[in-house]
């Protein structure tokens, strides 16, 4: 009767066919919730992260959990996964009350969590990762490797992954790592699967594959709690949606009763104002940045294009299309192999990031946690870390000028409406959106005229996203040349004057005006995706 026990060997289930899943459907009462959370509160010092949140997960449903950053989604997931203990409230699994004070308890209750940051050990093999902590043993307590490898192969094939289980995880792509996480979950009995932003780093084909797996799980009676920022995905896959705002549940509704706009309104607690994005006709001036036959590591190029002052150039492309490599090459972190980069018509060979900044080029890193923030420094320090002080002497530059920094902080804070209660607040305690604003603030502090923005709204809530788009347009209007590289296609359509589409390291589309649509961008991005691979 345990539906969970049928799951470990997904491959077997496929062979067994539909009658087995039907059995499960008939025997289990559909309306009986697997997991019920009642009035969950979670208090951190100074913050009430969750305030009497209710959640019910039914068998065979995909339940979306949405909310702005800081709404309490991650906290709720951590409470369900046993990483945090709730301050008050009750959790029930199959009608029985449970207490999760460590992740193992949650796992034993049949809850499986796939975090955004994978819980995989890079240096161990795939098989070893799948069974970590639950290794099948032979007599004498030693690991039964043949058994481990055999069952791993079964699990992986079931997920459409044809790789050796003895391969180390560090050799896998992000998408494959995710599938290994799924395999790890499938190797144990579970009835609830929680996925936190699972598509953040996947290409559209990989997203499709993941969705197939999710639907298959649903058919087997699993309750899937799906957390994502991408509303389009939620409307594609979810049966019900729970919206959180400021740690409280705004509501739970069937997806059919909602439109995207409704969900946004629930998340924000107000109507989304459409900041009208004004696009200027591309300036006819000489290009700020001209790229000629550029080639770089990773099979990038040859590429040729111009960026003008006063315009926003979008760069689109799937993961692996060379988007990040291009940005890094323009910023001098990755060295070019051949070709030219001209700044205001003058050829430059960028040695490193410091050189690029001296030349007036700024880059917003792709992942602020890895390449951007200094989590143990405060907001002001993070903001002014590389303040442009060209007129000052070397001695002056060597000494921090608190008053000037404070003035700069206030200027940027007002301009970007950074919500920090003090310049001395640690940057890591800000919400994702405000952290991103601080990162963008560095662009203004640097006084660079060419701005390379990677994923400017990654992990940012809907409201802040609109603000950041407005800011990007404003920067262009003020005479900056802005290059935006993003995996968020609607964003490029919205904010860009023109858009280059990369595929396999080459430009497969250059779109502007009425041609600059989401559909066209996607068509170009996948058109030649197999070229040169």
């Amino acid at each position: 009767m345990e539906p969970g026990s049928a799951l470990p060997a997904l491959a077997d289930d496929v062979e067994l066919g539909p009658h087995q899943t039907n059995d499960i459907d008939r025997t289990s009462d559909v309306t009986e919730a697997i997991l019920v959370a009642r009035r969950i509160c979670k208090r951190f010092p100074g913050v009430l992260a969750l305030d009497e949140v209710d959640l019910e997960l039914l068998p065979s449903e995909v339940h979306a959990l949405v909310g702005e950053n800081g709404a309490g989604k991650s906290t709720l997931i951590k409470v369900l996964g046993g990483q945090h203990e709730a301050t008050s409230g009750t959790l029930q699994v199959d009608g029985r009350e449970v207490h999760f004070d460590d992740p193992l308890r949650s796992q034993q209750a049949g809850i499986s969590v796939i975090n955004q940051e994978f819980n995989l050990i890079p240096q161990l093999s795939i098989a070893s990762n799948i069974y970590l902590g639950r290794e099948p043993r032979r007599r004498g307590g030693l690991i039964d490797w043949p058994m481990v490898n055999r069952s791993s192969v079964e699990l992986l094939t079931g997920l459409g992954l044809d790789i050796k289980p003895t391969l180390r995880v560090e050799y896998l792509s992000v998408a494959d790592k995710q599938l290994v996480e799924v395999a790890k979950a499938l190797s144990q009995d579970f009835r609830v699967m929680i996925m936190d932003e699972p598509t953040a780093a996947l290409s559209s084909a990989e997203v499709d594959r993941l969705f197939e797996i999710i639907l298959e799980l649903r058919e087997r009676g699993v309750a899937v709690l799906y957390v994502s920022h991408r509303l389009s995905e939620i409307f594609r896959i979810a049966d019900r949606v729970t919206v959180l705002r400021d740690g409280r549940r705004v509501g739970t509704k069937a997806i059919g009763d909602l439109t995207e706009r409704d969900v946004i309104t629930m998340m924000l607690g107000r109507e989304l104002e459409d900041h009208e994005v004004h696009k200027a006709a591309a300036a006819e001036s000489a290009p700020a940045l001209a790229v000629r036959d550029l080639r770089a590591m990773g099979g990038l190029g040859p590429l040729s294009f111009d960026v003008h002052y006063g315009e926003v150039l979008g760069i689109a492309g799937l993961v692996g299309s060379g988007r990040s490599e291009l940005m890094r090459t323009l910023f001098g972190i990755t060295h070019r192999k051949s070709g030219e980069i001209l700044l205001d018509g003058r050829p430059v060979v960028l040695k490193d990031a410091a050189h690029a900044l001296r030349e007036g080029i700024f880059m917003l890193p792709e992942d602020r946690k890895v390449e951007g923030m200094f989590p143990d420094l405060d907001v002001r320090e993070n903001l002014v870390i590389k303040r442009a002080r060209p007129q000052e002497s070397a001695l002056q530059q060597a000494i921090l000028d608190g008053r000037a920094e404070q003035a700069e902080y206030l200027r940027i804070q007002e301009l970007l409406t950074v919500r920090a209660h003090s310049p001395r607040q640690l940057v890591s305690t800000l919400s994702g959106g405000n952290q991103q604003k601080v990162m963008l603030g560095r662009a203004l502090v640097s006084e660079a005229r060419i701005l390379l923005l990677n994923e400017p709204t990654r992990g940012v809530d809907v409201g802040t996203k609109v603000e950041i788009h407005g800011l990007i347009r404003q920067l262009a209007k003020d005479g900056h040349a802005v290059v935006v590289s993003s995996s968020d296609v609607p964003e490029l359509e919205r904010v860009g004057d023109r858009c280059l589409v990369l595929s396999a390291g080459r430009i497969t589309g250059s779109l502007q005006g009425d041609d600059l649509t989401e559909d066209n961008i996607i068509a170009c991005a996948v058109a030649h995706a197999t070229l040169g691979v």
Partner: protein
Amino acid sequence: MTSATQGLSNTTETENRWLSVALRFFQLFESLGVLVMIVLVVALVSSATPNFLQPNNVSSLLITAAIIAVPAMGMTLALAMGGLDLSIGSIQALTACAVAMLLGVVGIPLSIGATLLLGALVGLINGLIITRLGVPAFVATLGMMSVLRGAALLMTDGQSILLMDQPELAQLNSGQLLGIPIPVVIALAIFAVLWVLLRHAPFGQHVCAIGGNEKAALATGLKVDRIKVIVFVIVGITAALSGVMLTSQLMIVDGTLGVGLELQAIAVVVLGGTSLMGGNANLLGTLLAAVLLAVINSALNILKVDPFYQYLALGLLLIFALSLDTLRRAIIKRAVTEGRL
């Protein structure tokens, strides 16, 4: 267009080949690199001085290697776990003095047993300081390095202890089992035990898991603190064992023994292919790298090079091993980000 495409695929192909060759080199190096270096050095030195390969020299070289290899194999576990133990040199001194002093009071088996227990106890204290007090392994064992050195010197009153009339103990060094010097037998036995532990017991996987991603290990429900303590106990025992082995070799001990052992052990472990960043353990590599270090030292001796050059050689070897490790990880990372595997 077509010719441009051709050119593109050609360049990616050469890059592809270069990358996979580099990858294969490192995978091969992990298992064979040290062996090749041993053969090279041996061939070079023995062609210059034929008595390098005399049985006497070979056996004394292997004994030296065994005395380094035993604590280095313990250290392999610590490094695989993302930790390290800087106190092993002091443990070696302390236990060497302890076994020497005990021998005057009780018999050999009891003295050795008690000494190994002492090593385990020190390891336990290291482990508890790290897990209970939350002191990083580097600092905790650095502190213990000084504490134990002081203890060893206090215990012996700064004097040397000369062991006479202890032929059985000397036998532990000079004796043979099936023609193999006993220290080498001990090293091989430790190798066998730790190899099974690392490769075939869940414990070894968990040690590597902690080194690879401690947060994930915790989230998976592994008993991280307990595993850490056990690893430091193992390191303590192997260091104590090396103390006993060293005593039987020298037959004269004092509190200044084993200075720099931690450096030797770390060099040997990293050269053997275990990453200083944790996550993997190459026990065979450690064993071979210990032999390599002994071969180099012996070669320098036989070529009558100033013994101070041994320090130089060790330091350079350590730096070389570390840069190789960094290069290896950089290549893996590139291969992964470019999806060219």
